């Protein structure tokens, strides 16, 4: 009886609202996208709102990292969630275990013309693997929007001086660690920092460099769904030793912060910068404004060891698992419509340097001509090596802080390599 009454009142209210012309369904969105990413994201959201009049997406940007995921979790528990949100694929294991994510089925995707098969298989394979290990098999806990990865930013003027450019002016391929170290040493003779990366209080960047080299050597963290850290004692030590040696030889900087690393490179005082593809717009803008005193180029991280693989993560679009106030069918339809719009317009997102996850866009004509992203996109999309499938890894998770705590001091010479690795191992083990 009560529900009938409630339903009647709702129906009356809705019809009044409809008559008055406020028939739009509001969809609340939370994201963690700041800087240039934030601007592009808002353009896409605005584009969606203008493209139709049934739904209106209202976005709020929150702080990246643990604050975001803590807020989402508390929101789910309290039943006060947004309708849709951005989410890192590397955080799925924690999100699924904490019941924060609502599964999205292939059938649901098909209602808006999408399908799991439409996305970069390098991403969906791992995503489905995570679903199987921590949640329900065969569903996605978030629809992948992009792959973001680490690339190399190259000062071509310095490369030319060091004889590292091919005859046609392109960057000559560098293969193998010996050739790479030799190139760094050559660049050092020019009186510049050969290779810059952010290491001061920046777990993320150090982790990405470490994990890339470790994975290229064949190192891993998970065997048969269980954490296994044995390779850290062999391969992990090798990687940290290599970076520590580079630091001692002055080939990479000792402890500089993220903005300093960008400043060093954009001032022409570093030959190579290791950073995420999301800094691409920074250099596009600097070049366009005539503020970059050299020619720059971009390349996928080279193959230095046995495997050609590079750290990558994926921004996904997920639906909070609000069991207290479950999402209504109308809103779900709106959320899925929004997701489909975002995926089909992912070329706008790619301008931020990201590689779209939606294959029709990734392999489409726009991306092939999208400069300078096309300098690395094809190779980088193949090299994708996602975070270990374990709750200890990924954005805002224990392994990140363990990197700054133990690996960075060993790399920068403040502690021994052996101590760094053993501390790192303990920290990951304790987080299990």
């Amino acid at each position, binding site marked *: 009886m009560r529900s009938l009454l409630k339903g009647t009142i709702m129906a009356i209210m809705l019809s009044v609202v409809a008559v008055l012309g406020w028939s739009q369904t509001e969809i609340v969105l939370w994201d963690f996208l700041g800087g240039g990413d934030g601007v592009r994201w808002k353009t896409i959201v605005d584009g969606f709102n203008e493209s139709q009049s049934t739904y209106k997406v209202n976005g709020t940007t929150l702080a990246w990292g*643990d604050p975001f995921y*803590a807020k989402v*979790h*508390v929101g*789910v*528990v*309290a039943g006060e969630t947004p309708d849709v949100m951005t989410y890192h694929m590397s955080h799925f294991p*924690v999100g699924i275990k*904490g019941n924060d994510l609502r599964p999205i089925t292939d059938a649901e995707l098909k209602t808006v013309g999408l399908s799991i098969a439409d996305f970069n298989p390098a991403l969906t394979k791992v995503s489905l693997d995570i679903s199987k290990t921590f949640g329900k098999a065969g569903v996605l806990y978030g629809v992948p929007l992009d792959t973001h990865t680490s690339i190399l930013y190259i000062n071509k003027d310095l490369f030319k001086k060091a004889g590292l450019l091919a005859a046609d002016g392109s960057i000559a391929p560098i293969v193998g660690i010996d050739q790479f170290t030799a190139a760094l040493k050559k660049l050092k003779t020019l009186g510049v920092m050969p290779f810059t990366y952010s290491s*001061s*209080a920046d777990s993320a960047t150090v982790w990405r460099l470490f994990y890339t080299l470790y994975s290229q050597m064949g190192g891993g963290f998970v065997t048969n769904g269980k954490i296994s850290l044995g390779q850290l004692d062999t391969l992990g030590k090798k990687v940290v030793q290599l970076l520590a040696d580079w630091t001692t030889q002055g080939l990479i*900087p*000792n*402890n*500089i*912060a993220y903005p*300093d690393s960008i400043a060093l490179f954009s001032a022409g005082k570093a030959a190579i910068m290791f950073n995420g593809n999301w800094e691409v717009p920074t250099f596009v803008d600097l070049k366009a404004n005539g503020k970059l005193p050299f020619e720059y180029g971009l390349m996928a991280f080279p193959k230095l060891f046995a495997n050609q693989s590079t750290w990558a993560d994926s921004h996904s679009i997920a639906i909070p698992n609000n069991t207290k106030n479950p999402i209504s069918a109308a809103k779900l339809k709106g959320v899925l419509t929004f997701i489909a719009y975002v995926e089909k317009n992912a070329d706008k997102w790619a301008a931020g340097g990201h590689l779209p996850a939606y294959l029709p866009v990734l392999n489409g004509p726009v991306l092939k001509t999208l400069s300078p992203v096309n300098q690395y996109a094809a190779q980088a999309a193949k090299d994708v090596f996602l975070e270990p499938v374990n709750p200890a890894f990924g954005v*805002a*998770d*224990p392994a990140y*802080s363990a990197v*700054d*705590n*133990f690996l*960075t*001091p060993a790399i*920068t*010479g*403040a*502690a021994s390599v052996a*101590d760094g690795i053993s*501390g790192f191992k303990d920290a990951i083990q*304790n*987080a299990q």
Partner: protein
Amino acid sequence: MATRIMKKRYPHWKTALLLLTPFTLVYVLFLIYPTARVLYLSFTDSDIAGIGTFIGGDNYVKLITDKLFWGSLGNTVYFILLTVVPNTAAGLLIALLLDKMKRFRSFAQVLFFLPYILPVSVVTQIWLWVLNTNYGIYNFLLGNHINWFKSVATAMPAVALVTIWWTVGFNILLFIAGLKAIPKEMYEAAALDGVDKGFRVFRHITWPLLWPVTSLVLLLQLIAQWQIFNQVYLLTNGGPFNKTIVVLQYMYVQAFQNGHGGYASTISMALFVIILITSLIQLRFLSLRGNS
């Protein structure tokens, strides 16, 4: 009957009640209730949203054998040793010097107090620049490349230095007020008795008469420094090698990174008890000294 006695003894009890109610409400709602809730959570295996089941004293058993907890406690004690007495001594010394200044005294007072009004994020940013390995002014002037916040030996002392720089202004203020409260006649009488040399005057007049202020500063410092978190979180994040992880930082890691709300509550309760005990001991010890 009781009300009549109340009315007789406290004729303005209604006003008193009215005035007390807002504070009591806020106090119960925002202090007593959360404390009780944390106490309860410390007996559960909750996540950060407080969802979990009662597990009895398991968290406390775990705490006793948790090496990292004891490590964080040791680091906090080390930080206290590096700050409480040095910060009080620095405050006293600067206050004495300011007291002697004839010109620009107010200006100098402002300069020393200025850091105290800065938010912690600004303070830590300033020092991250000053002590920056590659571009910091300190390393530039001394021509070295010490990695202040990343070296095992220098990280905690560097955090302590930043803390003293930031908070000494408040201690100076208290000491200046204390010095002003010492009657001038005391010094005049001492001069008549032939005690007018700097250190002897300090030893026999200034120090004992200033003791109530000194003990207050020490107590405030001790309570504040047990709760060290912000500077560590912003400067070193507990590293390198957990050498700067302090109790509250460890609680934060357990709660927000590892998602162990129940265990984090247990750590909070342990810190609560520790602060309570040290404050009681110190209060007793200091007031005894003050009376003698």
